[in-house]
């Protein structure tokens, strides 16, 4: 294998700057998408556990739609197809006036997709607690909303810390898909460095290290959080 090793390329300008910028884009996309995913996913997940058939139905449709289409296809649908489907004025606005269109589209797409997965975790957490707890709350005179607020949610969110962390890491890895619509995140930058300098090994190693460092850090944080919020005697649902 005749290959010119040149690790220095990683710390030379402009390549170093590219990597830093890419990494920041990765983090931004991930966090923004996670905020969307967590809030919307919680709502949908809770909706699927209520007594209302309509709410459950909507929740199920949401989850099934986003789960059965590849994320990349969804990304293209949002970026290329969605603006065409809007009424003319709105469509024009999206195509011309939308600030940071690639970033926003990636965040919306990733957020909505991951929301469907978060919904499943939240649902699983609530169902794991069981009907008995719900009945006990209602029997005391709490309204259904209060039962969720004081009985079900405090416990279920604690036991799903591992799978939720897993979902966050998945968003973090899936942020790489934003490169297909032009967001120059970590993986894109590594590829770009490779195309410019042919130092693929170095470039991809840098990207790999960045991902591994973040993944390991997040997992460590998760263990800390899990330890802090743990309910004595209860075992959490496993991370996938």
């Amino acid at each position, binding site marked *: *294998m005749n*290959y010119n090793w040149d690790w220095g390329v990683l710390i030379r300008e402009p390549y170093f700057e590219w990597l830093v910028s890419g990494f920041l884009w990765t983090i931004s996309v991930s966090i923004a998408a996670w905020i969307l995913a967590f809030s919307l996913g919680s709502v949908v997940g809770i909706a699927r556990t209520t007594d209302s058939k309509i709410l459950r139905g909507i929740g199920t449709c949401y989850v*099934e*739609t986003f*789960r*059965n*289409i*590849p*994320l*990349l*296809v*969804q990304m*293209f*649908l949002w970026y*290329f*197809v969605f603006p*065409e*489907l809007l*009424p003319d004025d709105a469509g024009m606005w999206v195509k011309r006036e939308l600030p940071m269109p690639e970033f926003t589209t990636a965040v919306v797409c990733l957020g909505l997709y991951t929301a469907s997965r978060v919904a499943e975790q939240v649902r699983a957490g609530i169902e794991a607690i069981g009907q008995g707890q719900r009945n006990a709350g209602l029997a005391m005179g709490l309204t259904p909303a209060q039962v969720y607020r004081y009985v079900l949610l405090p416990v279920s969110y604690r036991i799903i810390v591992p799978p939720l962390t897993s979902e966050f890491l998945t968003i973090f*890895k*899936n*942020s*790489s*898909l934003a*490169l*297909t619509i032009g967001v120059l995140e970590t*993986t894109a930058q*590594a*590829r770009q460095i*490779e195309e410019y300098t042919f130092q*693929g*090994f170095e470039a*991809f190693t840098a*990207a*790999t290290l960045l*991902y*591994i460092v973040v*993944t*390991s850090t997040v997992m460590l944080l998760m263990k800390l959080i899990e330890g802090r919020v743990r309910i004595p005697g209860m075992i959490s649902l*496993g991370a996938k």
Partner: protein
Amino acid sequence: MFGDFDTGVIFDNLNFLIEGMQLTLLLTVIAIGGGLVLGTLLALARLAPFKPLSFIAGTYVNFFRSMPLILVIFWFYFLVPHIVGRPVGGFYSVLVAFVMFEAAYYCEIMRAGIQSVRKGQIYAGQALGLTYAQNMRYVVLPQAFRNMVPILMTQAIILFQDTSLVYVVGVKDFLVSADLVANRENRILEMFTTVALVYFVICLSGSLLVKRLQRKFAQ
């Protein structure tokens, strides 16, 4: 909006699209097969009492699970020709990438399956005088397998969706074929909608099948 939805473009390019789908399916099937074989070996290695072996297997699994699939695809697209010594088609590089990547996920599924069998069952087998191998073969693995199959199948559906990522290196799968048609005929709306619909139908059917099987297995 949907005013001039041209279904004709789909039918005109049907053969091309079908070829793309064939490649997608081929990639999926080979990746599942390879991933299962390698994943089983990894799982056995992880569970082996021989510490160095389980450490190596564990490192492999954690490594591949920390990275995005796109990066893995780029890695192998770049690396395989260098290792082989000459340019290799995108398809083969991508194939290796998928097998190596999926193996890590299959390993974890199988390991969890084996560990999910209750300890009491292992004791019961031992108490009857079964050796470690006999206990594995007649008591643990049959139960582990029953637990694993639905999850393995779900992972296969996920793999099927993930194959669309070969877009980043231009391998002509279903999505890329549709994309080419979309750009050539300027019919982006029709093509991507079709792609989404096709994937949706296939994956939904797949997951409904898994649910049916799950109900059958749960005695």
